[in-house]
């Protein structure tokens, strides 16, 4: 591996097999690059093109398709109509990410440091519920938490919650649903980064009279930052685009940007509007992640992810 990474080293350029060696890194990354090109860049370009199209003037329902008109106003219009749902999605996803981190970190920590021989078993148990389709799991929550279901009915009977209390169809239900679904995606990378920490480093910190708090804050936490970063990406990005939880567990005032895109695409058949929304979301996320990566410093992350 090392020699490929150093392919541009001047010494190599004078070598006999220099061409092969110089091309090797590109050849190795080609499948990945091709994948990105076909499944990311080209669709994204197509989406941008479609967002800039307008329908051909029609009478009645006669459909003449779309024409390309550089209609940049589409983006403004999309933002004006749906900024509430866009910001709500970002807001939900932020809360979800923080919650999964708070809940997931101790779990990952415990498994990594105290899991012993059973580490794999614990990880497997953690993933077990996720062998069931997530739509089915969300529907199950709907059943369990319904107003007349076993949870709410009993809580009301014991006067823990006032009568008429409900959890479904609320913001809380949607956020909790996404958090539940996203949890393993936070725990797994955290576990990997915590597991990788050299235990002798922890020992050394203790030898140098660091108390438990300092060991954690000054040694373990900084060393697990790559895991946090990866967990953030795997949780935040899907959470922003989620629409199933809002559909199944939500009520009024919980519509997310994914639901809006689905509506514009499949019900309203307004492809330019749907494309513009999807493009805004995607570019917004990309920029956000790039800035975030700069701030946290991605150098070490490459080693972990």
């Amino acid at each position: 591996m090392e020699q490929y990474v150093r392919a541009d080293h001047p010494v190599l350029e004078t070598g006999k097999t220099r061409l092969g060696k110089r091309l090797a890194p590109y050849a190795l990354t080609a499948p990945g690059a091709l994948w990105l090109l076909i499944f990311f860049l080209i669709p994204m370009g197509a989406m941008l093109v479609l967002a800039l199209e307008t329908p051909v003037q029609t009478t009645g329902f006669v459909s003449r398709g779309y024409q390309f008109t550089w209609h940049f106003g589409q983006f403004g219009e999309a933002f004006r109509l749906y900024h509430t749902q866009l910001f709500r999605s970002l807001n939900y996803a932020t809360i979800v990410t923080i919650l999964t981190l708070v809940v997931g970190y101790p779990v990952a920590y415990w498994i990594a440091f105290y899991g012993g021989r059973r580490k794999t078993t614990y990880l497997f148990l953690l993933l077990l519920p996720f062998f069931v389709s997530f739509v089915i799991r969300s529907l199950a929550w709907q059943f369990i938490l319904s107003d007349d279901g076993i949870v709410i009915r009993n809580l009301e009977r014991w006067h823990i919650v006032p009568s008429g209390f409900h959890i479904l169809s609320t913001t809380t239900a949607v956020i909790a649903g996404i958090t539940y679904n996203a949890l393993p995606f936070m725990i797994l990378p955290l576990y990997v980064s915590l597991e990788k920490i050299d235990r002798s480093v922890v020992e050394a910190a203790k030898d140098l009279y660091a108390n438990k708090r300092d060991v954690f804050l000054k040694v373990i936490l900084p060393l697990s930052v790559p895991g946090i970063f990866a967990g953030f990406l795997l949780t935040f990005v899907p959470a922003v685009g989620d629409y199933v939880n809002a559909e199944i567990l939500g009520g009024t005032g919980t519509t997310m940007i994914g639901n809006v895109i689905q509506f514009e695409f499949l019900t309203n058949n307004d492809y330019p509007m749907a494309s513009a929304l999807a493009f805004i979301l995607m570019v917004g996320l990309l920029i956000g992640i790039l800035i975030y990566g700069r701030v946290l410093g991605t150098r070490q992350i490459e080693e972990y992810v």
Partner: protein
Amino acid sequence: MNDDRSDEGRIDSAFLRGVTQRRLSRREVLRYAGTGVGAAGLAAFLAACGAKSPSPGGTTSVAVGTPDWWSKQTQAGILNFANWPYYIDTSKGEHPTLETFTKNTGIEVNYRPVINDNAEFFAKIKPFLQQGKDTGWDLMVLTNGPQLSELIANNWLIPLDLSLLPNFTANASPLVKDPAYDPGNKYTVTWQSGFTGMGYAPEAVQALGRAPTSLADLWDPRLKGHVGMMSDNTELGSIGLLKLGIEPSTSTPDDWTKAAAELEKQKPLVRGYYGQPYINQLQDRNTWISQAWSGDIFIANQSGYPELKFLVPKEGVMIWHDNMMIPALAQHPLDAITYMNYAYQPLVAAKLADYIWYVTPVPAAKDIVLNQLQDPTVAKSPLVFPDTAMDQQAHQYYTFKGQEDLTEWNNTFEPIIQS
């Protein structure tokens, strides 16, 4: 439904089916197997990028759908039939009426319950139609609504020859003849119909201190947090119009704005805007009162929720029709129209009605369900065989004249749902 106690001693089939099978209504759950949506969306998206060609139009010398054209068609012995789930008689995985049809005509039916949503199914076939290609279906069932209007406006359906549909002429209910959305039944004949009214649970009666009677009860603050409305904006908008006493079929954009304001006022009381799962919300008591489709309440009654009631509010109900139609360039049109005619035989209609439990377009089926199939629960239900009082309460939907129209409607009512 309890007034049938007198002729006990024989367990009626509908009841048995109700207690032994948890009947999922059509449109249910599958809608949520949402990944399919993504796939459909992608196909439509890719097609939309390249779809610039106008509608196909006829390529043969004789105009498509004229009696001359029909007389030149020959029976192929195959019928590709797209329908909604749980929307045909089923017994042990087979469809008896389809088997009889095959026996009588020699036409093999490739029956597929692939339609879960009008807009979604239309999004799948539209790219084919735009490019002048065969959709693969000979017969499909879609509700009267903007998608049907668009199909008709673009010549994407093959006109029917009513002389090939003598059973329709003889047996169809006046409710489904010459409808506003398809004058003269030029392109469609109804498969089944249904009413959109209200459903409620005993909790609503408790909260109100009386049984609900009108749409205004959906606006009653005592039911706060337990009111269910529909996420289909045609349904939602229409009920807003009815509440204000405006006839939906002749309403204007100004009326729509007023109705939207009325619905906006209702929003703090609303638990959610639901698709088909509204019925589950009602069964689970998350909602106590809800906009509802007639057949669903009847199905719920037969499958463990006898306490739910359907209400024809004093302002009226909406009536919708799911229609059979033949898409343009269908490969086996004669087979399709032969089936349409078959479905309008009273005995066949009765067997369908006795399973589907929505409103059959053949009133003569009622006596057959009662006497021959011996299923009085179904035959006597006004939800399956509506009485004239119910018919008179039925209002027609607004028929969209074009995309501008539809966009205006969507922009008026959709913000209430997508909040």
